[in-house]
């Protein structure tokens, strides 16, 4: 029997409710909040972080993590900016390809080390986080990309609109981010590669024994993740124009926060791109709106954000896990899916995350 509502959908739905609640709260507090300008401001911020978070989701689904994305975004933004500044005739598609190419290269390094070198993801990407940034600082030699040096089309890009309704503008970059989220969501659901990500994240050993090409899949997840980070680097350059060597520092934690709030399980195996997009939107909305609430100091942002992440994870583990268990406990023709295996303690070579145990109980208790 096919059920209409799955627990994961409840999750996404509750996030939407939370987002609406926040928007209502802000609109009650901030005069003139519900306007096209607010939408433009938040959506352009979301666009970049969402693209990074989509890549992060691919990796987290396989029970890994990529902490190097911030450095990749910064490196790409700087390198493409310098290339454009020194060669103004460079065609736009070429600049995008260059950005993605740099990302792919970083992803190949990360992926090789994690998938084939069997070095834990957190160690690899903690290392490459430092290494990519070091290379950037070394190459940059204290030179900064300035907006004046960029070609005209690049300066016009962040203001380019796809469609305009009154003062509500949908920027081209926002549309691009939405298209990427949609494409990857479809890929996760319908492509063999997408299903493999879930299978590997749910139970790496079972996936390997079942004959799935686990190494290749994890490798590809990293390549795609950093390719997206490269693309985000291009968008970062377009949005800010001025790029120093510390550009996008800390974006790795922002992307992980978006992914976690979006309901992607840090232990791998569950989550969706739509959830990630809403997570990114929620985080960005709070960050951008809180400053404008009268009487509330902007210094409250981080404290609230931390609390939000904790609530997101806690609600996922405590409430939704019960739902999921109840849902799986009912007999279905195909039996419970692989996800449940995680709770039986059959873990051998898991990530650091899984060492903290499966959420809520497990069959044995």
């Amino acid at each position, binding site marked *: 029997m096919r059920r209409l509502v799955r627990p994961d959908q409840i999750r996404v739905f509750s996030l939407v409710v939370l987002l609406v609640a926040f928007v209502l709260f802000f609109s009650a507090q901030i005069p003139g909040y519900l306007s096209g300008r607010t939408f433009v401001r938040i959506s352009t911020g979301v666009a970049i972080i969402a693209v990074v978070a989509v890549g992060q989701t691919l990796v987290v689904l396989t029970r890994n993590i990529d902490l190097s994305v911030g450095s990749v975004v910064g490196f790409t933004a700087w390198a493409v900016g310098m290339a454009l500044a020194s060669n103004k005739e460079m065609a736009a598609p070429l600049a995008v390809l260059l950005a993605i190419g740099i990302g792919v290269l970083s992803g190949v390094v990360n992926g090789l080390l994690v998938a084939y070198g*069997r070095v834990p993801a957190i160690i690899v990407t903690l290392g490459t986080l430092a290494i990519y940034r070091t290379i950037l600082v070394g190459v940059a030699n204290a030179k900064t990309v300035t907006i004046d040096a960029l070609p005209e089309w690049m300066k016009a890009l962040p203001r380019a609109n796809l469609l305009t309704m009154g003062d509500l503008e949908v920027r081209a970059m926002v549309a691009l981010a939405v298209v990427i989220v949609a494409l990857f969501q479809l890929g996760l659901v319908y492509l063999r590669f997408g299903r493999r990500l879930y299978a590997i994240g749910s139970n790496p050993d079972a996936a390997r024994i079942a004959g799935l090409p686990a190494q290749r899949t994890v490798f590809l997840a990293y390549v795609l993740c950093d390719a997206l980070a490269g693309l985000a680097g291009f968008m970062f350059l377009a949005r800010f124009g001025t790029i120093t060597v510390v550009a996008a520092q800390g974006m790795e*934690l922002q992307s992980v926060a978006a992914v976690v709030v979006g309901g992607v399980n840090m232990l791998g195996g569950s989550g969706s791109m739509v959830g990630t997009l809403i997570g990114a939107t929620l985080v960005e909305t709070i960050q951008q709106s809180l400053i404008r609430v009268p009487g509330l100091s902007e210094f409250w942002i981080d404290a609230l954000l931390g609390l939000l*992440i904790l609530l997101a994870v806690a609600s996922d583990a405590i409430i939704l896990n019960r739902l999921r268990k109840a849902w799986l406990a009912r007999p279905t023709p195909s039996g419970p899916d692989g996800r449940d295996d995680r709770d039986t303690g059959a873990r051998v070579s898991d990530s650091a995350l899984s060492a903290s145990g499966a959420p809520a109980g497990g069959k044995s208790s």
Partner: protein
Amino acid sequence: MTPQNLLRRWETLLVVLLAVVVVINVAQSPFYLRLDNIINLFQLSIEKIIVALVMTFVITSGEIDLSVSAVMGLAACIIAFLYSHGTNMAIAVVIALLAGVACGAFNGLWVAYGRLPALAVTLAGLIGYRGIARILLEDKSIGQFPDWFNALGQQPLVGPLPVALILFAILLICAIVILQRTPFGRYIYVIGNNREVARYSGIDVRRMKLIVFIASGTVAALAGILLAARLGAVRGNTAEGFELDIITMVLLGGVSIFGGSGTLVGVALSILLILNLRNGMSLADITGNTQTGVIGALLILSVLVPNLFGAFRDSRAKSRRAARAT
């Protein structure tokens, strides 16, 4: 232990690397091995290495604590905030320590009793505790602490040794004894190896994890206070980003990120290696940023190289077996 085993041990490799680095450094500067330089070496990152000790417990038990740097910053901000509002400094220090206990307990409760992934909980802590620190100090920088407090971080206590260094030595000895010589320490290894086995052996896994996280928060707060004393002024972003350095120190010491294996001797050696390496690179005019990159590469290689050797050994053994079979 057989000599062959000794050669294969991670600690041996660290000692060799350390020796190489020290020899190169001495060749660069004849003053390198002077006592004041060595003390200075420790002084500059003393807070991080103190936290690395307790982080070893956290990682060995199979968890991770990303929030330590935020707790350090929060403790520093609390004393600055309270002192600037007229609280007695000694009381402020006690309150900051209690805040560390509270942060650790908060993390620990969610991880141990809520069974949430430590990475997510302490990421929330990393952002949230830092947020509280920002609420307290906003964008101000607060300094001008009482003289006795500044002296704590800036002047030697016994002979040439500053308080923090003595504290580190005491903590190191305590940590080695606890982790390697007491049942509590053995339990941490068991829990890190296999939580279920630990539970069936009658170990109160949840209580143990809670204790480890509380220890982590408390020591981080202590380190934050020492940092405030050494710097003489505190901002909202004090100690930001320290967590990565601290975790690197522990992992390079051969502690498995999956928990259950590693020794404090290894961590102590890796601390020495990193300190000497950084100092040597500074002598050779290599910037701090490049130093971080080099240590990042070292971290990856420290796991990759043994893995590759293992894979090589396996494939050789396999081909030998295949040859024998034919």
